[in-house]
């Protein structure tokens, strides 16, 4: 089969599995059949490192997945496969197969030895491909699949006189198979109720808690049927929550929720911010993830992410925060003093720099991000004919962003949206577009007063405290976590579940691990039903999808 025809076949297979062929990111809340989720870059890496060990060199770059209801995890069930996208998977597959079967690694990554390196070996090929295939496909290979992959390995080994090259061909094929690239939802109907099979449960559970495909122990629990019993499920969930791999799941959830993939395209005006480097940008993302992950690891109150003064810094970040780093070549824990303007992730460089223009701040972007990310509210995109002249070519007497935005809001077309973003975003004006603290703008003192949902504050610390105390922020987190877990848009049918989970989350002391654990053992997490008749949630119906188009 030539490459073009292989691509065509796989694209069709992928689309068929999805049941969403031709659906773009804007077609969100009507899912006719249980969705299949496309593997993400991190899931790909995490899974292959489980199969082949941490020494594998992997840096895959796959086509971006559209964001739906604020999450890539939800968008992954709406991603379509193009020939170009498949080409990237194909390249990654070949690199992996070459490393695994290469001379340096084969002796410890392939557990059997062929009788001859230059000929086919049916037994060794079968042992290897069966073992690998079980993790990649999240279930044992069928007899037909085993036969087909082993046959391909043998045929290639014979034709090129190389057992390992033959094995690599079949391994590459597995790594671009729809069964690997898409997490489908195999179902079973018991007493009229349709749920995921044990293997389907294992996959969903593992993606939620570890952002990876199931490990051997979880597949064993699926195979034995233990995962279908409350006791067996509880045991697996407890094992997984106790594992250090939970950090991968937690970090991926927050990376997704905080829209951190935008760091990959973040750039700053080198004239305005000459010391903002790529390294700062990379470290800023990591700083926030480490901060949030530590709160979850310590089983602390989730809302502390808005107020904690504890964080982790590198030397490069220290230059932005004006903080000395005692070990300049390491990540070091750091706690900002009580009177410091930095408290919580809103004051991190990750947030202040990401939600700004390349050469200046943007209270509008920041306010919009707070509403959409932390309150699960949709802010409409600016109208196409909006006049930005008062912002981009302002009257020089207007010294601060507040002054310029007030002038801009004099246009009633603009005023409506700015009313819902700027009062929050202006609270962060003490941080410039690269995240540096400032008390003045163009020698005029900065007025960082504002309000969030009627709560008045005087600066970013006050804004963060208001967010910490906002019930909407808590319920948004619950909503995002459930959407992340299910990998599909939430609709009206989920509202009761969200409400119940949120109450439980609050009663637990706002502990994220408890929330994840509760979702993982909840029957509803494994239910599969035809949702085509359901009404989308308010957020979904507002226009739930895609990459954020940000205003000024």
């Amino acid at each position, binding site marked *: 089969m030539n490459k073009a025809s292989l691509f065509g076949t796989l694209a069709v297979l992928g689309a068929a599995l999805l049941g969403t062929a031709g659906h773009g990111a804007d077609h969100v809340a009507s899912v006719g059949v249980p969705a299949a989720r496309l593997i993400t870059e991190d899931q790909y890496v995490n899974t292959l490192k489980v199969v082949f060990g941490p020494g594998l060199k992997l840096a895959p770059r796959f086509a971006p997945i559209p964001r739906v209801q604020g999450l890539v995890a939800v968008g992954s069930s709406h991603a379509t496969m193009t020939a170009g996208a498949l080409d990237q998977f194909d390249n990654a597959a070949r690199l992996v197969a070459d490393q695994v079967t290469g001379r340096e690694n084969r002796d410890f990554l392939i557990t059997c030895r062929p009788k001859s390196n230059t000929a086919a070996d049916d037994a060794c090929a079968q042992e290897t491909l069966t073992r690998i295939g079980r993790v990649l496909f999240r279930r044992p290979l069928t007899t037909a699949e085993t036969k087909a992959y082993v046959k391909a390995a043998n045929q290639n080994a014979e034709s090129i006189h190389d057992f390992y090259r033959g094995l690599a061909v079949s391994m590459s094929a597995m790594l671009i198979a729809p069964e690997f690239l898409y997490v489908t939802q195999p179902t079973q109907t018991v007493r009229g109720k349709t749920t995921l099979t044990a293997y389907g449960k294992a996959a969903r559970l593992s993606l939620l808690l570890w952002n990876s495909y199931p490990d051997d122990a979880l597949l064993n629990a699926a195979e034995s049927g233990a995962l279908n019993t409350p006791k067996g499920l509880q045991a697996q969930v407890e094992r997984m929550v106790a594992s250090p791999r939970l950090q991968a799941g937690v970090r991926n959830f927050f990376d997704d929720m905080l829209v951190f993939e935008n760091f990959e395209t973040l750039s700053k005006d*080198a*004239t305005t*911010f*000459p*010391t*903002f*480097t*790529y*390294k700062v940008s990379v470290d800023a993302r990591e700083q926030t993830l480490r901060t949030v992950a530590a709160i979850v690891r310590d089983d602390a109150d989730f809302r502390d992410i808005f107020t904690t003064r504890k964080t982790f810094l590198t*030397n*490069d970040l*220290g*230059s932005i925060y*004006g*903080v*000395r*780093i*005692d070990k*300049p*070549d390491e990540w070091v824990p750091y706690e900002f003093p009580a009177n410091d303007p930095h408290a919580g992730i809103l004051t991190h460089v990750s947030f202040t720099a990401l939600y700004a223009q390349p050469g200046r701040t943007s209270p509008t972007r920041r306010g919009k991000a707070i509403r959409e990310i932390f309150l699960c509210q949709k802010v409409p995109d600016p109208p196409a004919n909006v006049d930005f002249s008062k912002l981009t070519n302002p009257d020089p007497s207007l010294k601060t962003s507040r002054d310029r935005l007030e002038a801009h809001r004099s246009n009633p077309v603009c005023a409506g949206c700015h009313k819902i973003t700027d009062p929050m975003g202006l609270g962060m004006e003490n941080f410039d577009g690269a995240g540096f603290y400032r008390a003045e703008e163009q020698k005029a003192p900065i007025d960082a007063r504002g309000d969030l949902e009627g709560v008045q504050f005087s600066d970013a610390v006050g804004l963060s405290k208001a967010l910490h105390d906002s019930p909407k922020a808590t319920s948004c987190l619950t909503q995002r976590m459930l959407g992340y877990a299910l990998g599909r848009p939430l609709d009206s049918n989920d509202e009761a579940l969200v409400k119940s989970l949120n109450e439980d989350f609050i009663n637990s002391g706002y502990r994220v691990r408890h929330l994840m654990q509760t979702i993982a053992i909840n029957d509803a997490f494994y239910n599969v039903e035809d949702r085509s008749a359901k009404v989308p949630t308010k957020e979904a119906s507002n226009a739930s999808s895609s990459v954020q188009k940000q205003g000024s």
Partner: protein
Amino acid sequence: MSKQYLWKILGLGVVAAASLSYSSVASAKTLGFVVTGWHHSGTFTPDNKVECPQGLGSDGRANFKAQFKTKEEQEAQIKKYAGFEMRARGPNGEIDTYSPELVEDPIPFPEGQGKISYGFNLDGTKDGRATDRTCKHSKFTSPDGETGIDNQYYRSMACITGMRPHGDADAMANSQLLTKMVNRLVFEVTGVDDEKNDESVDVTIAHGLDKVSQGPSGVFIPNLSQRMDEKASAYIFHVKAKIVNGVLISDEMPNLDIAQYPGPGDWGIRAFMNARIKINLKDGDHPTAVLAGYHDVERLYRYWAKTNGIHSITATASGPSLYRSMHRNADGYKDPKTGKCTAISASYDYQLVKAFIIRETPEEKEISDNAPSSANADVQVASAKSPLEVK
């Protein structure tokens, strides 16, 4: 009472005062800087016409061709001393750079005529007249109008293409400043009560251990942390200073040794006597500084010969001419027996970036105190006083 002994007593006094007045010491600030660039101080114009009206100097190769005039003579010399190309110019084939006293360059050597330079008045005279300890020389005026500045080394190097700002040797030295850890130089200023005016602060000059980073447009990033290399204790120098109108001006350091790897050759010690430093604290995150003092001529030449000098063609310099010029312009440490000066005043312009200077933790210090340090071993040699130094 020797000056060093006096300092020790004063130092004890400072410690005692600190222990009596903890709150005031605790509120004092510490400033840190890392050197990001340096050039010789003096007047350097784009077309050289002000400071080198007679043109720039000639390198060893040009002098070889002038010394051995015919093609036959040149080929015979090259053949006789194969492997040394055009550098074997001594009576017995000695290399010009390494035996400068045995080689006479036939091409006249131009010396710098500029009159403007940053620096210090090192000899204390207004006009550079001869004294018991110094030789007659011309003074410079700084761009700010400060008069009486000494910088005789400028006379010798100003017309050597490679040593001028952004010349090959200069550019290489600046490049190596960023890439070679041995070149990383830090200044720590402690006990700063007022950055504009402070009668007494303490300055520590030492080597750093961490990289300096630049932003996308080449600006050095301020406020990074930089560990002081406290293992290399012989490279650590302390001096008192005062701050006047935002400019830090140090007292005199009897000796200051700066290890440098300024070029493609070996590393060496740029050794100062009576050194002083001035840092313009008003310049924000990227201050400028001036470091000046006397260099023992013989020692400075050896430093030059083993660093830039071995690539004197790249530097467009000829060792014998430079060596003679340095002796001719020497203005300090007069030898009472010969009446000739043995040291030359010099001044360097530094570019700095603000940084947090990190000292060793007690645990790290215990390790470094108990471990033999190769850096210190090097310094034992480097710190040996020149036999020519006048006490």
